[in-house]
């Protein structure tokens, strides 16, 4: 019940394409869903986050779509660039204790 399932494990997209990364969860007590971006040798950095009362959130080229009934959420990257190549983690936070549970990660490669 504490798991967050993420797919795909890896993704290769041409520059300008729209990579989509999907996550699913079981525990309805999760109430905050952040996405983290991690470059090699660095710690994860918060990219964008959403709460379940909102179905979509955009920040620059990054969009989260949230489907509360299906318990799924996804990250879309518009006009992807080679600099977006990184590992992306979805996560979920349990209401009340701020515990971050991470997905397994998606290694994204944007080719020129």
């Amino acid at each position, binding site marked *: 019940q504490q798991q967050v399932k993420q797919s795909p494990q890896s993704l290769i997209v041409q520059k300008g394409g729209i990579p989509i990364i999907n996550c699913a969860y079981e525990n309805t007590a999760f109430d905050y869903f952040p996405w*983290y971006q991690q470059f090699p040798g660095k*710690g*994860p950095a918060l990219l964008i986050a959403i709460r379940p009362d909102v179905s979509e959130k955009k920040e620059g080229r990054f969009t989260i779509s949230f489907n509360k009934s299906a318990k799924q959420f996804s990250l879309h990257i518009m006009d992807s660039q080679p600099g977006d190549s990184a590992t992306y983690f979805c996560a979920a936070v349990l209401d009340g204790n701020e515990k*971050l549970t991470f997905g*397994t*990660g998606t290694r994204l490669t944007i080719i020129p």
Partner: protein
Amino acid sequence: EAGVAQSPRYKIIEKRQSVAFWCNPISGHATLYWYQQILGQGPKLLIQFQNNGVVDDSQLPKDRFSAERLKGVDSTLKIQPAKLEDSAVYLCASSFGQGLEAFFGQGTRLTVV
């Protein structure tokens, strides 16, 4: 603002030896986390502190891992004795508490040989 500081960046030890990692969170952040990230996997929470009290240590292997947060600021994570499967990056993160955004340090890469 200064980020989360961790040291050392890298550590290589033999199995059965002990090792300690240090973390200095962002000033004013009440919540501090230690995560273990095995190569190719997502970070796994080991322990979460709120000020100097433990909120969650359910996934901390307490027979060999210990952690403390002195005076609600800096924290140390210790492994004694280390096993080969402890090879991983150990990430420290902190958050203001109610804000929920966790800021991560660069991590300590531990190799146990």
